[in-house]
């Protein structure tokens, strides 16, 4: 490259060179812009794929007649799972959105993977490489869904003063981050009966107190108690609403079944109670009202047990 100097000592660049330099700069900038966009798209697609894979891995956790199932997922890079619950539509939506760390910086993506048949109870953001997942069936009074609980291996929950039943169940889960009684500093303490822990469980009044908020569950439903322990209030309340939406839908399936089996000599005694259950479940606004739906569910259960042909 030859640049001439004029008589005053300034550089004299020909128009051709100036044009080539400008055009080169523009081309390089365009190339950089598109490659950065492409990297973002690739990262979003990786996040979406991982999200979908996590969703698929939750399928085998659907229980048959087991009381619980457990598994763990390890992701090669540090990952933030955002648990998003929404009550719009027939069944509400469960979405998970993943942000992954790249060069020690969180790369945020907008792509969320959605499911209608899954109910994940967790904090709003779960961060780590290894995640423990366990599931428990929720019956109200018939099976409604399998509840999934996701906890990061970075967080240790220490259960103090739990009943034997709860201790046995937690021991069977064999999750290294769920500890009984011997708490360390930095553990999230879950206390039964006593107060002033990070999470306080009141088994007499059926509520879990966490971050100065109360989440209610019902008698004989340890699955909802675990859900409240591992969830943020907003997520818990949203999932309860979604579960009640499903109670409403499954009640109407049993109503259909009752009228179909009536032609085959079965009794027709549960219609009104199922209608009541469906209606109360539909109108629930928060977990505090679960007790009301529970009364209807118990009525329906009694009615079913008294039938010649069981509906469920």
């Amino acid at each position: 490259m030859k640049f001439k100097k004029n008589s005053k000592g300034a550089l004299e660049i020909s128009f051709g060179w100036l044009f080539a330099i400008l055009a080169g700069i523009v081309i390089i900038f365009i190339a950089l812009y598109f490659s950065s966009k492409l990297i973002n798209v690739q990262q979003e697609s990786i996040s979406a794929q991982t999200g979908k894979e996590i969703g698929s891995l939750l399928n085998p956790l659907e229980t048959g007649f087991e009381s619980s199932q457990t598994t763990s997922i390890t992701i090669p890079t540090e990952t933030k799972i955002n648990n998003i619950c929404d009550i719009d539509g027939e069944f509400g939506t469960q979405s998970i959105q993943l942000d992954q760390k790249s060069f020690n910086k969180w790369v945020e993506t907008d792509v969320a993977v959605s499911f209608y048949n899954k109910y994940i109870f967790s904090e709003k953001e779960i961060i780590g490489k290894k995640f423990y997942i366990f599931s428990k069936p929720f019956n109200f009074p018939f099976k409604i869904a399998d509840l999934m609980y996701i906890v990061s291996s970075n967080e240790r929950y220490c259960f103090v003063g739990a009943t034997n039943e709860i201790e046995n169940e937690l021991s069977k889960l064999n999750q290294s981050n769920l500890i009984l009684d011997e708490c360390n500093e930095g553990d999230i303490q879950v206390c039964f009966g006593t107060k002033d822990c990070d999470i306080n469980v009141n088994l007499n009044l059926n509520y879990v107190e966490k971050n100065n908020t109360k989440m209610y569950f019902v008698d004989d439903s340890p699955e909802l108690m675990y859900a409240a322990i591992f969830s943020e209030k907003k997520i818990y309340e949203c999932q309860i609403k979604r579960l009640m939406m499903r109670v409403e839908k499954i009640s109407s399936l049993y109503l259909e079944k009752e009228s179909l089996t009536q032609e085959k000599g079965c009794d027709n005694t549960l219609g009104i109670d199922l209608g009541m259950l469906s209606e109360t479940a539909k109108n629930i606004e928060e977990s505090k009202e679960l007790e009301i739906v529970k009364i209807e569910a118990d009525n329906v259960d009694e009615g079913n047990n008294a039938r010649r042909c069981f509906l469920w």
Partner: protein
Amino acid sequence: MLEFPFKFESCRNKKGQMKIQQMIFMIIAVIILFAMVGLFFLSTAFSSLRKSATTLAQEESMLLVSRLANSPEFSCGNAFGNSKTNCVDFDKVAGLKNHIGEYSDFWGVAKIEIRKIYPSGEKLCTEANYPNCEIFKILDKNVNTLPYSHNFISLCRKELNDKITYDKCELALLMIASEDRTNGN
């Protein structure tokens, strides 16, 4: 005398114009080359993305089919004696068919059907011939689908014979298929 410098100027102008034209052609060629490389790269990336979406959908339907029979909308529960795994309540599923609009996206698959293995046949189930039929289409979204994933189930229902109600269970296949999105549908 005056003509010479003018001729020389116009000759230099023409040469300059030629160079600018050459450069413009060069830039256009470079841009076209970049665009073609970009398009090729994007099409490869998208086709691999579609492939992985298809693989994921297939994996999901395989995992789902093994568990679908135990989901609340299908499972027998205790309705036919003790709890059974992979037992589908035919009467409940017949009720589900009437609500399938609400459930169309629920499981994230395009087709769900039950096919009796014994007695086998090709008779499609309708409200009129239920339960004397062999193929019960629960969900059909009328889209291109990937191959079916299936699982063996016992298909149970209540039957009436001489005023006696009894449980009847038959061997069947629960089949599901995910939507095929590879053709950009």
